């Protein structure tokens, strides 16, 4: 039995308000499942569990504000949960041979031939959800129009989802948020959190700044060719390329990817890129895009879209709050030429991308118009020096010359 506790989502968090349970007693959860939503200064955060097992009981009522560390629910871990129902199913008087249970001591069974015993019941496994019936035509349409079949009611044979069912669903207005519960982002609280983090950064981190202009004409050509053949759902933005290039470079340059804590730098093997996302009405969050260096561009783009959408809807996950090992910030097409970021502690680097501008550029000895972007690096001088920073930025620029290899 383990307690599921109010997590700490940053050093400055003292308490959180439990605003939604996504599980109920008896439900099975596995590591990584989202089980609750907690309102914090940073907005509503979806909380994941680290345990696999069965929810035994809910300990905190909705809308109560509790300190970090307070048990919120009790989870019976896998081994316990499997053992228990079997025991409960067996009449106490009958001789029983327990199925092997990892949590229990091995029963002392003599090696003599055992009396005939019923085999361990497989019925304790959680029932697999019934497969959604969906016709081939409907499945193809759902893919093309990005309709989640789980949201469609089937009208075909045996309740199967048909083409018309998907078409009807696709024609409905896009819901403005995934769920009816609208977690209002508290922009004032967010501003307070940004202020604290940025003040701490400027107080503690000796920043140094570098800038590097890179020709991204190849990226633009490659993108327009690739996107021409794709439906809007699968199209890529240049932001996916710059993010991937940064992640790959960060993997090769560990001095920019990790945490500075307790006067010590811990480089990170994994590259979790914090994506700076502007919130309408003023506000900023930089949730982590996990293992960005390992993702294909297509996956990276769809994860980016999901992350931006959830962040703006106020639904960040707990693991996305504090996992970032480096941050990327970009002001996009309506931004300015150059921006220098402030490092988000305890990270040690932030990479900025300015607006893509058409500039006279020398290629093979001749001046011609090229699309040029200014990449900047703000890095922690306690961990790295300008020379390493320059190599890191140059590497990002090089990677952007061959977009098909990203």
């Amino acid at each position: 039995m383990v307690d599921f506790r109010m997590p700490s989502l940053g050093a400055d968090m003292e308490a959180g308000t439990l605003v939604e349970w996504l599980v109920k007693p008896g439900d099975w959860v596995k590591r990584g499942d989202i089980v609750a939503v907690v309102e914090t200064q940073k907005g509503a955060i979806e909380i994941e569990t680290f345990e696999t097992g069965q929810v035994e009981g809910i300990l905190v009522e909705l809308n109560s504000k509790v300190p970090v560390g307070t048990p919120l629910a009790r989870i019976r871990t896998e081994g316990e949960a499997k053992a228990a129902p079997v025991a409960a199913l067996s009449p106490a008087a009958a001789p029983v041979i327990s199925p092997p249970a990892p949590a229990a001591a091995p029963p002392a069974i003599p090696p003599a031939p055992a009396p005939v015993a019923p085999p361990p019941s497989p019925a304790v496994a959680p029932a697999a959800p019934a497969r959604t019936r969906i016709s081939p035509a409907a499945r193809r349409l759902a893919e093309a129009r990005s309709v989640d079949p789980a949201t469609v009611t089937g009208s075909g044979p045996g309740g199967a989802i048909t083409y018309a069912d998907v078409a009807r669903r696709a024609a409905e207005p896009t819901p403005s948020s995934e769920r009816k519960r609208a977690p209002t982002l508290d922009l004032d609280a967010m501003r307070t959190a940004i202020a604290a983090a940025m003040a701490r950064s400027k107080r503690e981190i000796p920043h140094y700044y570098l800038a590097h202009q890179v020709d991204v004409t190849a990226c633009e050509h490659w993108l327009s060719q690739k996107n021409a053949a794709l439906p809007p759902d699968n199209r890529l933005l240049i932001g996916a390329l710059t993010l991937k290039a940064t992640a790959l470079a960060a993997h090769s340059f560990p001095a920019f990817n990790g945490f500075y804590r307790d006067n010590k730098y811990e480089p990170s093997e994994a590259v979790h890129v914090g994506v700076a996302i502007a919130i309408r009405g003023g506000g900023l969050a930089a949730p982590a895009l996990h293992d960005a260096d390992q993702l294909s561009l297509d996956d990276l783009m769809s994860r980016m879209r999901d992350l931006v959408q959830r962040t703006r809807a106020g639904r960040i996950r707990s693991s996305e709050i504090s996992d970032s090992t480096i941050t990327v910030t970009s002001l996009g097409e309506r931004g300015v030429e150059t921006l220098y970021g402030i490092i988000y502690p305890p990270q040690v680097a932030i990479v900025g991308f300015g607006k893509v501008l058409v500039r006279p550029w020398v290629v093979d000895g001749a001046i011609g118009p090229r699309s040029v972007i200014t990449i900047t690096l703000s890095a922690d001088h306690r961990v790295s020096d300008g020379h390493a920073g320059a190599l890191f930025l140059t590497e990002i620029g090089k990677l952007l010359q061959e977009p098909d290899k990203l």
Partner: protein
Amino acid sequence: MQQEALQQGTIDTSYREAVRQAIRDAIMRDERVFLMGEDVGRYGGCYAVSKGLLAEFGPERIRDTPLSESGFTGAGIGAAMAGLRPIVELMTVNFSLLALDQILNTAATVRHMSGNQFGVPLVIRMATGAGRQLAAQHSHSLEGWYAHIPGIKVLAPATLEDARGMLWTALQDPDPVLIFENVMLYNITGNLAADAGPVNIDKAAVRRPGRDVSLITYGGSLWKTLEAATALAAEGIEAEVIDLRSLRPLDDATIMTSVTKTRRAVIIDEGWRSGSLAAEVAMRIVEQAFWELDAPIGRVCSEEVPIPYPRHLENAAIPQAPKIIAAAKAALGRA
């Protein structure tokens, strides 16, 4: 039948009469054409198709044969190879099995085995299907078996136009063509253009357009299927009825176009279900239009019994409109 109104230039006629006129026309147009088979002359054909033709054209062109399907089909193959254009009539598809060796091992293979030196421009007509209480040795629908054989074409005229028009086109074909006339069609009547003539023999026809489900059929089942489609329309289900017309080769394009539109298919085939032509059509749909489907493909076939003699059992054994309606509704999830 599209031409319902009594327009000028149309005649009231029957399927039997249309077949007879097709034979007359062919004999008159081409001196190489002749008809032979059991009882086609003096008796006028066991389904009375050739009644009167012996008097009109004489025994050279209308030839009665001994009761030996293998023998006279072989004679027809020889005549065709030697330059004539025989029409061989086999009394029923059940009896055609006696000539199967000639049809499969000779007619269908000669072009292949002679290295294209010889062809067999032969037409074989035969009756098929149940419904006349002729019991298990006269009532089966084995055209699906013939549609298995490369080297021949297999036709199933279901309308007056096709009964009138397919024969001449078949006679122009350089290879054997088998024409299956469902016994329940001989008596159907309707209007036919007075100048009705040859028709294509390689395209399926949409006999009734619709958007909700494709009912794919041929031959004697066409009229039951159209009856079912009318009943379905009364319940708001718009069925599209496809008449295959040619069972070999199959017109895949028309089938797939229809199924792509309706996303549902039911195949109505008087053959037995196992290993049937319906199975072949269904599999082609799966191969070529799987991603268009909205429901499992349905089949209405004959019960897997020898066709019974008693009328109520005979009717129960073969496809009927209520079964077709039920299968169409099942495909729409309205069962």
